[in-house]
Each structure stands twice: as C-alpha cells, then as structure tokens.
C-alpha cells in the first residue's frame, strides 16, 4: 500500500530543528526507560493493494453468514434499502468527523439536525441530542441526567437488557451512586416490588420497552407510580415499536432513549450502534453531548449551530456531569436517511410485519409438543419459549441449515426474534426443523 503519512522527511527535520532536537526519539525523553520499548516495533513492511485485498477477503471468508437470522436481543436484522447504504456511503458523509469547528460544517450539522427532528417526532418528545454510542450508554446517560443531590439511586427493572444494567453499574461505580434492580415477575417488572423501592433517594426508574424478553411493559402504570414518588421515568425503547406504540410523553416518560440500530444499520457483528436520547424542555439543559439548533445568519439565511453546549466538559471541565464528547454522526445520518426513505407508512409497515411474523412463528413453534411460551404477556417481535430439549441442540441444528436460532438463555429457554426479512416459508421450514429435533 502507498505511504499515506502526510509529512516528508524534510518537514520532520524542519520541525525537529525548530525544537532544537536531532532525533524524534528525544521527544520521549521524559518517559522512564522502564516503560519504553527497547527494540523497534515488529511491523511487516506492508502489502500491495492486491495482496491486502486478498488477505482481507481470506479473513472475511472465515465469517459465518446466515441466510436467516432469528436472533435479536438488542441488535436486529432488518432489511436495508439500497438507497440508504448508497446515500450514507457518499464520501463527504463517510469522511466527516463529528464537527470540531462546528459551524464551518453546515452539511454535517444539518444531517444531525434532521436526525434530531426525526427522533423527536418519533418519540414525541421536545428535544433530541446528536446521538451517543449505543442504547446502553444512552440509558445510562439518561440515569445520570436524573441524578440530584438527594436522589442518587437509579432503579432499573430486571427485565432491562443485561448489557444496559452492566453499563449502568460501571458508571455508578465511578460516581459512587447506587443501582437497585427491581425484580421481575412473569417476565415483567414486578409492580408490587416497585412499591417498596420508590424511596426518597430514588432518582429515576429505567424500564425497557419491549423488555429483554420481548414483552410489552405497562410503562404508563409504572411511570405514573414513579412520578407520584418524585422519581423520573426513563423509557429505553426499541424505536421501531414507536411506529405502533404511544410516544414518550403519552406514557409519562421524562427521557426516551434506546438504540436506533434497527434504522438502516447492519448488525455488523454487534456494531457500531446508535444510541439516541430525547427529553422534555424541562430537562433540556441536562441532555449530554452535542445538540444542533437551527437559527438564521446575519443575512437571514437558515443556518445550523451547536447549541446548549455551556455545560459540556470543554467548557465546564470537571463540573460537567457527562463525559460524552462525540456522537455517532454517520450512523445517525444513516438512520435519518432510512427514516426519510421509509416514511411514516413504511416504518409502520415494517413494525406490523415484524409483529405479525413473530406471532406466526410463536404459534407454529407452540404447536410442537413440549414447546410453549415462557411468559403470558403480550410481545412485539421477540418471545421466549421453553423447549423439551437442550436449547443449544436447536441452535446447532439450525446453524447447519444456515439459520441463526434464537438466543439460548441461562434458564434453558430460547429468546427468538423475527423481523420482516423472514418469509412465511422460512418460518414454516424452521418450525419443521425444530419439531424434528424436539420429537426425535
């Protein structure tokens, strides 16, 4: 490959001269010898483009690609229209980093503004930020927003994704705050247990919709009860479901967050993902990260600016409450293009497809002897079944057929997910294979 380092030897020497040094190594003179490498880094000399391409293809060939994915658990296999990939791959978008000389980059600011506007409309909230890393960090940053001097405890339902709870614990370990997990009953947040946990030191209640088991929580009831106790409601939601379910304010959420990966982003072995956060005007100043606003320039033209930055760490230093200083600009742009392409009707069609196909597979599987739904609640596009055989056996058999099965859970059950990509014939075939395994 070519040499893409921007400096010539002459330029390096000029810089060293200006510093009064003779060797680049002298720049590291302050680093103790005990932690310095005492030999050159063992790097191969580099490959030609043809060799590099061959090496990468050989690596890629080691990947297992499934023709059908029935696994979600936080990362979802939706169809991505070609135009989405094509637009998002435009070089000016791909190479635009999150803007530092922000207002010079009107294009990228506009793309973020569009993303924010779409997320506000979808979640039915007042304000959105420019995005954060993923759904887990979004939910955790939401908990940080709710923290007050006398309210330092984050209540989180046991039915929230385990990765989100783990991320929350990591953050709270650093700040000395406490995480209390509300137990589950029949796969749903235990309402009775919540009653005793709405203490005066509780800051927020985090509920996931649909929850980790795919079930629909009574978020209205939970948040209403929390509000009475002065506890803020954080709704961690799969945004695809918002095409069918009521928005954030309607269910009493103070903050809506989640992972917008289902909007045009490939599963890509688990990332990059796209955390989103929207909130009310009342909490707007606590929203972390970048926020793009629309204004007019001195000539009266429409222009975009970074706004509400005064509490960010580059200004408030150690007094800022969040260390988020970037966003997932390209992923947010992709989600924006996806939502724009599909429109309100398109998103609703995808969501309805997921819903009905998941229920179709659930019904087909439950006709097999020994297979049944683990929980009685209503679900969206994921559901848990009990199985008469080891879940890993079903995973292995389906893998041979090129199908990624549901996720085997610790209690021997399986968490299935069906999106619009599965055809009815696929689902019939999968049910037949599972039946063979179960009845063998």
């Amino acid at each position, binding site marked *: 490959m070519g040499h893409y380092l921007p400096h010539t030897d002459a330029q390096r020497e000029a810089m060293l001269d200006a510093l009064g040094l003779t060797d680049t190594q002298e720049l590291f003179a302050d680093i103790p010898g005990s932690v310095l490498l005492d030999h050159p880094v063992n790097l191969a000399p580099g490959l030609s483009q043809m060799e590099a391409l061959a090496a990468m293809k050989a690596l890629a060939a080691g990947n297992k690609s499934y023709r059908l994915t029935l696994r979600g658990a936080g990362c979802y296999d939706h169809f991505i229209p070609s135009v989405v990939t094509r637009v998002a791959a435009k070089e000016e978008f791909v190479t635009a980093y999150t803007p530092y000389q922000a207002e010079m980059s009107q294009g990228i600011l506009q793309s973020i503004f569009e993303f924010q506007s779409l997320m506000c409309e979808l979640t039915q909230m007042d304000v959105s930020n420019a995005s954060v890393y993923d759904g887990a960090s979004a939910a955790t940053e939401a908990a940080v927003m709710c923290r*007050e*001097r*006398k309210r330092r405890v984050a209540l989180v339902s046991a039915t929230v994704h385990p990765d989100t709870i783990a991320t929350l614990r990591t953050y709270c370990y650093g700040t000395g705050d406490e995480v209390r997990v509300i137990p589950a009953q029949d796969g749903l947040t235990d309402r009775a247990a919540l009653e005793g946990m709405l203490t005066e030191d509780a800051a927020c209640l985090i509920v996931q919709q649909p929850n980790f088991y795919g079930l629909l929580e009574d978020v209205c009831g939970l948040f209403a009860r929390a509000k009475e106790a002065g506890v803020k409601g954080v709704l961690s939601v799969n945004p695809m479901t918002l095409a069918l379910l009521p928005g954030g304010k309607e269910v009493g959420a103070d903050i809506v967050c989640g992972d917008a990966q289902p909007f045009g982003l490939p599963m890509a072995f688990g990332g990059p993902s796209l955390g989103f956060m929207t909130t009310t005007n009342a909490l707007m*100043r606590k929203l972390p990260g970048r926020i793009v606003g629309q204004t007019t320039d001195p000539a009266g033209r429409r222009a975009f600016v970074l706004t509400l930055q*005064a*509490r960010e760490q580059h*200004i*408030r230093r150690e*007094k800022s409450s969040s260390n988020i200083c970037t966003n997932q600009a390209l992923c947010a742009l992709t989600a924006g293009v996806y939502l724009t392409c599909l429109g309100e009707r398109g998103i609703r069609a995808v969501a309805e497809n997921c819903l009905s196909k998941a229920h179709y597979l659930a019904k087909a599987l439950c006709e097999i002897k020994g297979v049944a739904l683990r929980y009685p609640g209503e679900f969206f596009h994921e559901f848990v079944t009990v199985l008469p055989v080891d879940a890993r056996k079903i995973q292995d058999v389906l893998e041979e057929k090129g199908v990624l099965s549901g996720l085997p859970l610790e209690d021997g059950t399986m968490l299935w997910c069906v999106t619009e990509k599965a055809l009815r014939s696929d689902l019939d075939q999968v049910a037949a294979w599972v039946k063979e395994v179960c009845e063998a």
Partner: protein
Amino acid sequence: MEIKKDRLYSQSHEWVLFEDDTTATVGLSDYAQSELGDLVFVNLPQEGDPAVKGETIADVESVKAVSDVFSPVSGTVQAINEELLDTPEKINQAPYDAWLCRIKDVTGKDGLLTAEEYEAFVAGL
C-alpha cells in the same frame, strides 16, 4: 454600575442582605450581571441544602458559558427565588431585586465587603 449601600458584597461578586442576624438573602451584583451578559438559565439549590462559604451554591448560564455562584456565607438554604427559573433575565434587569436564595443560620460573615470596599475592589479589577 450601581452598588447598593444597604448590603454587603463578596469578592466573587455576590451581594448579601441581612434580614436579621442569622438570615440573609443572596444575589449577584450589578457588576457580575453585566460581566456575564444576558442570562438564559439559572440553576438554584433546593430548600434545606447546606450553604458553605466560598463553595458553589447555584450556577447561572449565559449564551456561551455556565458560571458558578459562590455562597458568600455559610448556613442552610431556607428559600429560593423560583420566579428566576422562568425569568432569569430579571437578574440582568434588576440584580438587586433578583435574589437567588435566602440562607438561615448564617455564620461566616467575616471577610464580606462594605459597599465602599466593594466599589474600590471592582475599580481595581
């Protein structure tokens, strides 16, 4: 710039108006508001919060920056001026009427400046 003679001041530009020996209201001086520029948001403490002399008790946000307000005395927050939450611009319009909070059980009055001393202090900045 106005410096009211009926109250005391801190070097961090808060004013203190004693209602009695142990109760005082706190606000920002005319100098402070004019240096900060147009205020768009104010973040006040909660009733019952401890106030510690020299430590942050509130913050005010102008278009470009958030600035801390330091408590000029120690004590306990008895009341806050909730009106400012919706109309922070009142601090710019009438800094000596726009009190931020009232502090009870006040201690640590030493080191506060009289109006004359504060005027001299500001003149030297």
